[in-house]
């Protein structure tokens, strides 16, 4: 065995002393509420990772969808998989659409519920309307942003936000009731049907028990702008294509038959479109599987448009023209979960010119 030299012995003593001091510092920080994300290996508070938010929080074009999904994927990876603090930089953001804002709120809400340490914060946006949206829908509060913003912009005032994990008709009612002076009674009832069916779909299919998800929420946003009501309801579950593949509602058989008959491949977009067409399954569970078709059929009376974004699949239906389209995006542009969007033209309020 080699004899320790005096130099080596002194080196070992120094390294041990440093390690002891570092561990003590980590323990002190953790006693004061620091997490692994804060302290890192050095036992000192780690600066948050800056993450630039996209210019457009939107999924309507391939470009904006690609940017938004990449941003959300990175946010999830940093905050959950890599256990890091993240600071979202909103300075370049100029547009917040219902779909994109809903996906952002859902992601942050989920991260906060899972980590409980407020690890995601943000910079204040340069765009005043963006700041008002983030304030009004509660995203600033979720991100611990202390600067308060007065809501003055006409379009922001009409944003409504809600979330939950069960099917609550009262919540759907309140989302629609705000616009009752522009919405006839039959139209309000039709929208109530669509929203409660979307909540029921989320509750029953989005988060299968075997996945052991800790957060099983839906999030609902609505906005009135330019005589048009946009309502979105989304979740961060397995998505419609995978839930069809798991065949809980017994629709997979009829859907695959339909796709084979039409010589169409079973990709995500085609699966969603086929599920919309099939309102009755041909298995013993015939009484189920009506929710998706309900969301579209309801729209016929409203003369609006319906969009469904789920994983790689996208489906759109225009009730005015009867036209449908579906797309299967690249894996990098996959939306986590499902987002259903209704865009409904609304009448002028009574007495308006």
């Amino acid at each position, binding site marked *: 065995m080699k004899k320790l030299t005096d130099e080596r012995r002194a080196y070992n003593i120094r390294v041990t002393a440093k390690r002891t001091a570092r561990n003590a510092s980590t323990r002190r920080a953790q006693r004061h509420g620091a997490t692994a994300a804060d302290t890192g290996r050095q036992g000192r508070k780690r600066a948050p990772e800056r993450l630039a938010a996209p210019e457009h929080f939107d999924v309507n074009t391939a470009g904006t969808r690609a940017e938004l999904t990449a941003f959300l994927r990175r946010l999830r990876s940093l905050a959950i998989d890599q256990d890091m603090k993240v600071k979202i930089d909103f300075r370049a953001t100029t547009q917040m659409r219902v779909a994109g804002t809903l996906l952002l709120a859902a992601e942050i809400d989920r991260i906060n519920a899972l980590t409980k340490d407020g690890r995601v914060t943000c910079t204040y946006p340069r765009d005043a309307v963006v700041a008002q949206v983030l304030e009004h829908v509660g995203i600033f509060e979720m991100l611990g942003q202390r600067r308060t913003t007065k809501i003055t912009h006409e379009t922001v005032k009409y944003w409504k936000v809600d979330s939950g994990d*069960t*099917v*609550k*008709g*009262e919540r*759907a*009612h309140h989302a*629609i009731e705000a616009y009752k002076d522009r919405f006839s009674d*039959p139209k*309000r*009832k*039709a*929208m*109530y*049907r669509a929203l*409660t*069916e979307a*909540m*029921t779909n989320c*509750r*029953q299919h989005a988060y299968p028990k075997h996945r052991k998800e800790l957060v099983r929420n839906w999030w609902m946003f609505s906005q009135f702008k330019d005589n048009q009501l946009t309502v979105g309801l989304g979740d961060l579950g397995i998505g419609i294509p995978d839930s069809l593949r798991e065949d809980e509602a017994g629709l997979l058989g009829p859907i695959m038959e339909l796709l084979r008959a039409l010589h169409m491949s079973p990709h995500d977009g085609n699966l969603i479109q086929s599920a919309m067409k099939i309102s*009755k399954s041909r298995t*013993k569970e*015939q*009484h189920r599987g*009506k*929710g998706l078709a*309900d969301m579209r059929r309801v729209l016929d009376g409203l003369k609006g448009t319906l969009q469904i974004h789920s994983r790689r699949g996208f489906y759109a239906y225009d009730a005015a023209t009867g036209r449908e389209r579906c797309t299967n995006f690249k894996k990098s542009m996959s939306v986590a979960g499902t987002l259903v969007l209704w865009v409904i033209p609304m009448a002028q309020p009574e007495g308006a010119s």
Partner: protein
Amino acid sequence: MTTLSIAEDFSPFPAGRFRTDGPYPGEAFREHLVKALAENQRVTVQLDGTAGYGSSFLEEAFGGLVRLEGFTSAELHEQLIVESSDPSLVVEVWSYIDDAVAEAKK
């Protein structure tokens, strides 16, 4: 003879299918309805006054009478009256009952 108003006797916000879905689902209303059918020769269900109905609620509440509670078509046509200012809702309810009857015969 008795009248069951969903809006007043159950909830103005019926939604969802199963008890695990939420506070006022079709399964829960069906339990009220089964009790009323057991205690009365005729039961009128009034659909007006709610914020609306989803297919999941209606199918579980009414189709479930056949599928899960064992009522026959003849019994329901004798005992059950469904009323609404929207005739399409009444048609929808009976279609769920008829579909459940057809399914039970398979």
